């Protein structure tokens, strides 16, 4: 019935920071390394910050969300960006009725 009950395997990866070359490539590489399938990418500039959002499916992923999160965060630190991964239900619950 609800999203939480039939738990989807989609996550939202958010990247916030200053724009630079290679952000998409770097994040995609981490996701590919985890066998996560990228479903959608969008990017925009909000309040002077570059915001990139990726939706990915981790149904067939080779690692847990916690581990993937860890890898994305350390990649973010390396590149001076804030990268996070959250289960998509957070956004469903907050923004869709």
């Amino acid at each position: 019935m609800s999203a939480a009950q039939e738990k989807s395997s989609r996550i939202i990866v958010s990247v916030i920071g200053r724009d630079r070359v290679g952000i998409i490539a770097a994040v995609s590489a981490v996701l590919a390394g985890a066998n996560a399938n990228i479903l959608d990418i969008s990017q925009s500039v909000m309040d002077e910050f570059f915001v990139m959002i990726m939706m990915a499916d981790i149904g067939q992923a080779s690692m847990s969300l916690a581990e993937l999160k860890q890898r994305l965060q350390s990649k973010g630190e390396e590149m001076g960006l804030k990268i996070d991964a959250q289960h998509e239900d957070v956004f469903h619950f907050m923004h869709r009725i």
Partner: protein
Amino acid sequence: MTGSRFSPQEIVETIRMVQMENLDIRTITMGISLRDCADRDIRAAGRRAYDKICRLAGRLAAAGEEIASEYGIPVINKRVSVTPVALVVESADSEDYLVFAEQLDRAAREVGVNFLGGYSALVQKGATRGDRALIASIPDALSNTERVCASVNIGSTRAGINMDAVAEMGRVIVETARRTAARDGIGCAKLVVFCNAVEDNPFMAGAFHGVGEPECVLNVGVSGPGAVLAAIRKEGRTDFGALASAIKRTAFKITRMGELVGRAASLKLGVPFGIVDLSLAPTPAQGDSVGHILEAMGLERVGTHGSTAALALLNDAVKKGGAMASSYVGGLSGAFIPVSEDIGMIEAAAASALSFDKLEAMTCVCSVGLDMIAVPGDTPVETIAAIIADEAAIGMVNRKTTAVRIIPAPGKKIGDSVEFGGLLGRAPVMALHPQSSRDFIARGGRIPAPIQALTN
């Protein structure tokens, strides 16, 4: 439904609420029935309670961490509430209830929860032998345990106010402060006196697992004063209708997070989901203050004229926004105005903008009551009892929950301040009326229940 795309604005809004506006899940509280732990041997009862809590709540803290990581929403506290202990220990031959409290404390430590609520008695109409013995043991229990929280319900709209219990609680509070004098009377921060107590409150120190509750249940308390504050500031100088709408929209979003986390925790732990408590629970952190929300509405300092109206609007808008966001709403559901746990309230009290009497007036329109208020250590027990009676009268007549959590800080005078640290914060010692209430409290008996509508 899963096909809908989120705009960058939506994603960023969520992230901003969590990272910059302190949106979090304040508590996931597991309610556990201890009714089957009763035993004639108090030690055996304690062991049973310990075993049952460890069995059911063993995975609670870990599940909370997992959810926080998966959804990117901090889950600040994992807690346990139990059946009012008086109901469980009454069958024991011994009245050495401290043994039982110590087992609860051990269990809380074992499962990794910072507070366990339910060292409680419900005596709104009168007390049984077990109730009396439990209430008498509260100073002992709170000074010899670290994580156990106690509460006593002394009145209700249906039963009236048990003034004998009110008088007794005055003594219990002063004694608890004395026993924990070395830490500014911190024992009193873990003791709540209620009128119209609710059975599914997830917030400490007043949480207990009511008698109408199932074997085990999960209740969630959300927070988010910071997110509401940001929404009000963003709204600018609008009229009250627009202001209420902005609060409602934010409350809806905050509560949805509680609903999501409650459902996820319920699935992970295999325990039914009870309710979301739609409360705005502040912390001493900057930007997480209910007092500052009222100030953002246009008051120079919380506590000045207009504060009660501002709080009434806030409390109602939070409920309206939250009610649609959750399938099951319960608990206390409203804005909390604890003095020591809210930086805006601390500042206002320290600047004498917020008086005790104004605070009492504000509790008429919000949940929950006179919360975390430090008063001089030499306050007479009858004055403490009379404060409880006043607050209970507000709850009784208005058919709402009210509570008193007051700390007569040993050795402290007006203008001093007490420091509890962490979520409990610090509180300036507030002035009370010096005139005596002794003869009033000495009457004893009950204040009759107010007339309703002669229904039933």
